[in-house]
Structure formats: structure tokens, C-alpha cells
């Protein structure tokens, strides 16, 4: 199959698939960031059941095999009376897994803040919430830019699990297997998807480096 044939037959589907991958990536990443922030706050707060819950959450979701989680949501949850559509399953899975890594990034961001700063804030009489909002989170966010860029790429790659459920429209990985079952596609359909993934990852990396250069705290 030549490139021209490929695009004339499947060009529209590639556009849709790329859009689906990007959409799931963005939604999952935003969701994961919000959840990661909440989990991180739970992990640093003085209330010990919340702390332990946060730690437990991270251990569970960063160690579970992502595919097994997706399969549970898609195939097992209907038995419990909970039915989500394919895209929701993919996004929820990605959010849950990515949030555990995101929380780890935030934690190591927090760890780079000097204890002296926190002590200074406390001796100024700032409350726990004030310390978090005004001292910790702004700095933790800044030093988490590079790890979070990597996480965004990881989130994009994780949405490839969408190929394991009947997603409509398909995303980039599912489309390759679809094209190969419809016709003898050879290496080309694969190469197009791979380049779209790797190219996007490259651009995300460039953007992340640029942002990091602007906001990084020099210590």
C-alpha cells in the first residue's frame, strides 16, 4: 500500500484517531493533575487516616497493571451495575494511574523546598493552609514542570490502552490494528501512527523544557 492510497482510504480516520488520542490525553492529564493535587494534600495533612489513604492510593495505582485496571472498569464493573462507555473507562483508568505518578512528582517537588522556609513561615504565624497555598504549592509546581512534562507524554502513551476496548472513533493504536485487519497495510500505517506519537511527544518535551527554563527556581 502506498502512502497516497493509505491517506485516500484512511486519511480521515487518522485525523479522527489523532484527535481522539489528543482529546483523551488532555482530559486525562487535567483530571490527573487535579486528583494528584488532592492526593498530595491528603498525604501531607496532619490527619493520619487521610495520609494513609493517600499513601495507599499511590501504592495501589502506580503498581497495578494499567490494562488490568481498564479491563476491570470495562468488563467487571457492569456486573456491579456500573456501566461506563469505552472512552470514560479509558480516561478514568488513565487519570487514576497518572494521578499516582503525579502525586509522587509533587511530593518530590515539596521535598526540594528547604525546611528553613517552612520554619520561617510557621514562625510568621502562617497556618497549615496558608503555608501550603503561599509557600509550598507555588514552589512544588515550579519544580514539578519537567517531571509533569514526562507525565503528559506518559499519559498520551497510556491512552493507547483504548485499542483494547471498542472505542469509537478509534485512537491511533487501535486504528493501526484496524487497518491491518481490513487490508494488508504493511509498515506504513504503523509508521504514520508512530510518527504522530513520537512527534507529539517531542513537541511536548520542547514546550516543557521552555516552560521549565522560565519558571525553574535556581538553588
Amino acid at each position, binding site marked *: 500500500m502506498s502512502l497516497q492510497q493509505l491517506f485516500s482510504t484512511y486519511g480521515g480516520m487518522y485525523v479522527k484517531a489523532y484527535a481522539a488520542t489528543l482529546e483523551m490525553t488532555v482530559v486525562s492529564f487535567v483530571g490527573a493533575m487535579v486528583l494528584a493535587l488532592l492526593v498530595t494534600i491528603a498525604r*501531607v495533612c*496532619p*490527619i*493520619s*487516616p*487521610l495520609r494513609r*489513604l493517600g499513601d495507599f492510593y499511590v*501504592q495501589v495505582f502506580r*503498581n*497495578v*497493571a494499567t*490494562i*488490568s*485496571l481498564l479491563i*476491570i472498569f470495562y*468488563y*467487571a464493573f457492569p*456486573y*456491579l451495575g456500573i456501566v461506563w462507555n469505552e472512552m470514560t473507562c479509558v480516561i478514568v483508568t488513565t487519570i487514576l*494511574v497518572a494521578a499516582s*505518578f*503525579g502525586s*509522587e*512528582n509533587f*511530593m518530590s517537588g*515539596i521535598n526540594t*523546598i528547604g*525546611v528553613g522556609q*517552612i*520554619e520561617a513561615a*510557621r514562625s510568621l504565624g502562617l497556618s497549615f493552609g496558608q*503555608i501550603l497555598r503561599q509557600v*509550598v504549592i507555588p514552589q512544588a509546581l515550579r519544580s514539578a514542570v519537567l*517531571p*509533569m512534562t*514526562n507525565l503528559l*507524554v*506518559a499519559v498520551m*502513551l*497510556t491512552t*493507547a*490502552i483504548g485499542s*483494547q476496548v471498542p472505542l469509537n472513533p478509534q485512537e*491511533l*493504536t487501535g486504528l*493501526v*490494528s484496524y487497518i*491491518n485487519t481490513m487490508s*494488508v*497495510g*504493511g*509498515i506504513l500505517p*504503523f509508521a504514520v*501512527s*508512530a510518527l504522530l*506519537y*513520537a*512527534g507529539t*511527544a*517531542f513537541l511536548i518535551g520542547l514546550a516543557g523544557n521552555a516552560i521549565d527554563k522560565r519558571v525553574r527556581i535556581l538553588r
Partner: protein
Amino acid sequence: MRDALFEAPGPKTKRKILVGTIISSIAIAAILVWVVLRLYQMGQFDASYWYFFGQWSTWRFLLQGLAGTAEVAVTAGVIALALGILFMFGRISKNRVVSGIFRVIINFFRGIPSLLLIYFFFLVIPSYGIKMPAFWMLTLPISLTASGVLAEVFRAGVNAVPKGQREAALSLGMTEGKVLRKIILPQAIRYVIPSLISQLVVVVKDTSVAYVVSFPDLLQNARVLISNYDSLVSVYFVVAIIYILINYAINELAVRMARQSGTKVVTRAQENPV
């Protein structure tokens, strides 16, 4: 560090914390009760869904799957190590063309999902007449995607060796190759051992798509169990827990080794957790 965020609580705060503890405990307990109740209402505690976990044959079958998982993970891990070092050498080469080529290779394998590569080995390569057993259709793509990440991990290790050592070795008359082999690599590898171990978690997770190429790993064998006993929820639940425990153990090992050697685990955020 996270304990430094608040003062030793006074009586007022202690009361607040106590209230918070009680409320959050109740909330967590309520969620647990709701989940259990839901499972109960849907009849998921029915003995027919669970009795076979009391049989040795069930566990033997799952363990066979686990052996398959381990086989793929270890083989892929070893290949990825070798390729990772090779890619890293290419990347740090003084020759700009070579280092540029390897930069592209590394970023390519880091930038595509392992599932896509598995489909490539499963669908595309056979169409060119190359026959390959399922084991390799799974192991090779996993090693390739892991090797891109490992190359960067190794590079971080090489960069962590102080520059003065290389200069000292060169001025002693050692050749570049010898410096790399005898001075830099031994230390660099020591630095990155914990990170390498924690990358094994990624490889183990990647193996769980083995059913795509119908290789009998843990998840694939679980699917067979499900069709035999018609009990989807309980089996997937148990399998997910097995994965969590294995990866947790690997992770703990990495953290412990890092503590022993006084190094840091290079962040796991770079992994693509398929």
C-alpha cells in the same frame, strides 16, 4: 519533610485534628461499606465465584501464568539493559552524526506506546513472511520501548560521575575507551541500579498485554479461568492484587537499594505505564 509542614499541635489544633480524624475515618469506612454492600447486592460473594480459589489447581494455573510473565519480564529486562547501554554509548558519542542518530532512536522508542510496537510485531512483521513465536512478539517490543528509557537513565548515571575523574584518568594516559570502561561505567551503573530495578516495574506492567499475541501470562491465564468458572469480577480482582503486590515488592527493593547506596531513584514519571 512532610512532617515539617505543621507545628506540634496545641490543645485547640489537637481537637481539630481529632475531629478531622473521626470524620475522615467514618467517610473511608462508609465508602468501604458501600463497596462491600454493592458487591453483596450483586451477588458477587456467592460461593460459586470464589470456591475455586481454595483449589490448588487454580493457583497452579495462575502461577504458571506468573512464570510466563516473569519469563517475558526478565528476558525483556536483560535485552533492554544491553540495548540501553548501547543506545547510551551512541548518544554520548563525540561524533555528531552518530549521537544525532541515537538521539532520534531513543526519542522514538520513548515516544511511542509499547502496545503500538506490539501490534507492529504481531501484525506487520508476519506480513513480510517472518515467523516469530508469541514470546518474541511480546518480548522484543517491550525491550525496545524500555531500552529508550534505560538509555536516558544510563546517561543520567554517566553525567553523575564527577568530570574531574575523567580528566584525571585522561591525564594519566588512559584512552577515551579505557576511561569509559574502567572509570565511568562502573560508577555510573552503581548510581543507576535502583532506577533500573524500578524500571522493571514498567516492564512487568507492559507484559500484561500478552493476550494480544496470546502468550500465556498472568492476565491471559486469568481470562481462561474466567471462561472456565464464569466468574469475571473475582478473578480480575485477585489478578489486579497480584500485580500490585509484585510491583510493590520490586519498588520496595529499589527504594531499599537506593537507601543503601545513598543514591536516588531517577523519577519513574518517565515510564509509559501501559
